[in-house]
C-alpha cells in the first residue's frame, strides 16, 4: 500500500463517513462492479483471491441480501437431520443462520446438526475414526486445504463436486478459480471453500503517526521503521510463530510469493522439483534474515496468538503479523481509541510485488458413505452459494469465497461495522497460497523454519532436510490443480 493509499484509508475507513460520501461510494462501486468483477476473475489466476468492488457502507435505508437463495433440486421427503463436523467454533452462528433460512424457505424437513470441534486436530481425529469405521456420519465434513483434503479424497472417504458443478455451472463460477484449483486433486474438485483468508500486517496507526512513520513499501523501509521503533522502546512486529505448525512458515511463503515462485514451490511440494533450488533456498535465507533483523518481538516461537494480540493491543508493539481470521479477537482486545489499520507485507525484493498470503479457510465436502449425499450437497450449496456467501461473510467479516457485488458489500456493511472489511477485500487479488500438500514436507518445513528462527541450522541445511523428507515420500499418489 502506498503512502497515499494509507492516507486514503485513514479517511475512507476508520472514521465515520458522511451520508453524502457514502452515497458517492455506493454509486461509484455499483458502477464499477461489473468491470471489477471481470478484472477479479482475470487476476484470480495469479492468486487465491480476486478483486472485489469497493464499497463501504449502505447509503440509505435498510438493504437486503441482493442474491437469491435458490431452491434445491433435491428435498428431504421426510424429517431428516444431516450432520456436519467442523473445527471453527466462531463459524457456527453463520452456518446455523443459513441452514435455518434454507429450512424455512425451501426444505422444512431438513435440519443441519453442526458439531464444532475445539480445533482442527480434534476434528481430524474424529473424522479419521469415523471414516475408518465406515460411518455414514458426518454427512458434511469440513477439511483444510492441502494434506487433509488429499488424505480424505485419495482414501475414497469423500465425494467430489464433478456432478454438482456439471449440473450447476453457475455455482462453480461463484468461486475464485484459484481457490478451486487449490482444492483440485487428481483432476476433481474435492471440496469448496466457505470463505477466503489473508495474512497481512495489522498496525497501530497512532504509534506510526506519533513517530512520523509511513507505511513501508519495501523491506528496507520496514527495517528502518523497525529500527526507529526499537530505539523508542517499542517492539516492531508481534509475530506469533509459536501458535501452530503453519505460522513458522509464513515468512517463507511471503518470500516465495514475493518473488512469484509459488508454482516452483508447488512443484517441489509434489516432488517434481528440488527444494534446494536457489529460489527456494533464498526463501529460507529470508526467514533467517527476518529472524535476525530485530523486527520481531523477542522469542517469536514462544509467542502464541493471544500473547501477540495482547502485546499489540497494549501498544508494546506497533505491528502484528497475523491472519484476517484474528480480526475479531484483535478488535475485542483493543482499547476504544486504538487506530487499527492494515497493510500487505512490503515487497521482499527491490521492485517486487507485495505478497499477501491467502488461502481458503474452512472447506466443505460430503462423506462418501453419507445416507443423504444429495441433501448434503444442497446444504453445502446453500452455505457457499451466492446468497449464503454474502450472509456467511457478513457474519464473520472474512473475505467471501468468490466475487460479490457492490450491493452485496453495501448490505454487509450495514451490520458489519468493521471498516477493515473492505480493506481486506481489496487485498484479495494478490493472494499467495500458503498450503503444502505433502504432510512429511510440511512437517520438515515447520521444523526447519523453527531451526532457522532459533539459529540451530543454516537455511541451506534446512532446505536439504526438506528435500530429503520430500524424497523419502517418493512419487506422490496425487496431483493437484
Amino acid at each position, binding site marked *: 500500500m502506498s503512502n497515499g493509499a494509507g492516507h486514503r484509508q485513514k479517511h475512507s475507513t476508520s472514521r465515520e463517513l458522511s451520508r453524502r460520501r457514502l452515497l458517492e461510494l455506493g454509486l461509484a462501486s455499483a458502477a464499477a462492479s461489473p468491470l471489477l468483477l471481470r478484472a477479479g476473475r482475470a487476476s484470480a489466476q495469479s492468486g487465491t483471491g480476486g478483486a472485489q468492488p469497493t464499497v463501504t457502507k449502505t447509503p440509505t435505508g435498510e438493504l437486503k441480501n441482493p442474491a437469491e437463495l435458490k431452491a434445491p433440486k433435491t428435498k428431504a421427503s421426510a424429517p431428516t437431520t444431516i450432520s456436519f463436523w467442523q473445527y471453527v467454533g466462531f463459524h457456527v452462528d453463520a452456518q446455523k443462520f443459513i441452514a435455518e433460512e434454507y429450512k424455512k424457505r425451501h426444505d422444512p424437513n431438513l435440519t443441519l446438526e453442526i458439531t464444532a470441534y475445539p480445533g482442527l*486436530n480434534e476434528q*481430524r*481425529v474424529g473424522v*479419521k475414526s469415523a*471414516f*475408518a*469405521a*465406515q460411518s455414514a456420519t458426518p454427512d458434511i465434513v469440513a477439511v483444510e486445504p492441502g494434506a487433509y483434503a488429499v*488424505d*480424505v479424497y485419495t*482414501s*475414497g*472417504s469423500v465425494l467430489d463436486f464433478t456432478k454438482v458443478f456439471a449440473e450447476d455451472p453457475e455455482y462453480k463460477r461463484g468461486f475464485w478459480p484459484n481457490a478451486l484449483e487449490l482444492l483440485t486433486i487428481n483432476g476433481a474438485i474435492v471440496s469448496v471453500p466457505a470463505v477466503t483468508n489473508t495474512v497481512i500486517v495489522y498496525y497501530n496507526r497512532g504509534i506510526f503517526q506519533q513517530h512520523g512513520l509511513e507505511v513501508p513499501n519495501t523491506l528496507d523501509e520496514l527495517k528502518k521503521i523497525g529500527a526507529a521503533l526499537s530505539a523508542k522502546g517499542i*517492539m516492531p512486529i508481534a509475530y506469533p*510463530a*509459536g501458535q*501452530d*505448525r503453519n505460522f513458522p512458515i509464513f515468512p517463507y511463503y511471503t518470500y516465495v510469493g514475493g518473488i512469484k515462485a509459488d508454482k516452483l514451490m508447488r512443484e517441489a511440494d509434489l516432488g517434481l522439483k528440488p527444494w534446494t533450488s536457489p529460489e527456494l533456498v533464498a526463501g529460507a535465507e529470508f526467514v533467517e534474515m527476518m529472524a535476525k533483523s530485530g523486527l520481531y*518481538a*523477542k*522469542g*517469536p*516461537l*514462544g*509467542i*502464541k496468538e*493471544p*500473547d501477540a494480540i*495482547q*502485546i499489540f493491543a*497494549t501498544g*508494546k508493539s506497533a505491528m502484528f503479523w497475523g491472519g484476517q481470521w484474528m480480526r475479531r479477537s484483535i478488535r475485542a482486545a483493543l482499547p476504544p481509541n486504538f487506530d487499527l489499520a492494515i497493510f500487505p507485507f512490503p515487497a521482499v525484493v527491490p521492485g517486487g510485488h507485495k505478497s499477501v498470503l491467502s488461502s481458503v479457510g474452512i472447506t466443505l465436502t460430503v462423506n462418501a458413505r453419507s445416507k443423504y449425499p444429495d441433501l448434503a450437497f444442497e446444504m453445502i450449496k446453500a452455505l457457499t452459494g451466492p446468497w449464503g456467501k454474502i450472509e456467511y461473510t457478513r457474519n464473520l467479516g472474512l473475505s467471501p469465497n468468490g466475487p460479490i457485488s457492490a450491493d452485496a458489500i453495501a448490505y454487509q456493511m450495514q451490520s458489519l461495522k468493521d471498516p477493515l472489511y473492505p480493506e481486506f477485500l481489496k487485498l484479495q487479488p494478490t493472494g499467495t497460497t500458503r498450503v503444502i500438500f505433502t*504432510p*512429511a514436507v510440511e*512437517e520438515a518445513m*515447520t*521444523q526447519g523454519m*523453527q*531451526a532457522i*528462527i*532459533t539459529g*540451530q541450522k543454516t537455511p541451506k541445511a534446512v532446505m536439504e532436510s526438506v528435500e530429503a523428507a520430500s524424497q523419502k515420500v517418493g512419487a506422490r499418489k496425487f496431483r493437484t490443480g
Partner: protein
Amino acid sequence: MSAAARRRWRRNLTGYAFAGPALIVLAAFLLYPVAYSVSLSFHEWDGYTPRWGPFVGFENYRALAADEVFWRATWNSIVFVVVRTPLEVGFGFLLALLLNHRLALRSLLRTFFFVPVVMSLIVVTIIFQRVFEPNTGLLNTFLRVIGLGDWAHPWLGDPATALPAVIAVSVWKNVGFSLVILLAGLQGLPQDVIEAARVDGANAWQLTLRVITPLMRPILALTALLSIIGGLKVFDLVFIMTRGGPTYSTEVLATMLYREAFELNHMGIASAVAVILVALVLSIARVQTYVLDESPEGGKA
C-alpha cells in the same frame, strides 16, 4: 462328579459370575485395544481406509530405529521422567513432612498445594504460556523488576529451555498429588516406633532420615511409580504448550505417537511407538513392584 467337586465348581462359578462383568470390560477396553495395537504395529495403514494395508513385519520398528526424531522423543521422555519424578516426589515428601506437624493453617496449606492437581490442565497450560511469554510474561517481567533482566528469556521458544519449562509446570501441577499420598502415608505410620526412637534420643533429622523415611519406602516407591508412569505418558501438557517444539526439543513419545498417527498418517509406526511406550511402562512397573516386594511390607524381607 463327586459332591465335593460339584460344590467347588459351584463356588468357582459364583466367583466367575462376580468377576465376569469386570473381565469383559477389561477385555473389551484394555486387552483387545492392546492386541489390536500390537497387530497394527506390523502393518501399514493410513487410518482412513477401512482395511489395514499390507503386513510389513518389523519394518515399522526398523523405521523407528532409524528415525532420529524417535530417539529424540525417547530421550526427552526419559529426561522428563528422570527430572520430574525426584522433584515431584521430593517436594511432595518435604511438604508432607512439614504438613504432618500441627501447624496453624495446616488444612489451608494442604488445600493450597492440592489446588493445581484439580485445576484443568488446559487452564494451567494457558496460564503458564502467559507466564513464560518472552516479552510481557510474568516470569520475565518479574526478573526485570528485581534487576535480573539479563536472565529474561524466551523460555518456551528456545530449544534449550523449552523442556525444562514444561517439566517445571508438570512438577507444579502434580506435586500436590504426591503430597496427599505421602501425607496419608505419614499419618498411617506406627507411632510406637516413632515414639521409641524419640525416647532413645533421636533428633528430628535422625528421626526423619533413619526412621520415617525407611518406613515410608513403599509409599515413596508407589508415588514414584505413579509419577514415572505419568511422566512417560505425558501428552496433553506438552502438546498444548509446545506441540513438541521448537525443533522437537520437547517431543516425547506420546506426542510423536500423535504426530505419526494423525498428522503423518503412519498408523503402523504410531502403533509401534505405542507398543514401545507400553513396554517401557510395564518394565518400569515391574521393577518398581520388585522393589516394593523387597520392602519390609512386601513379604520378602
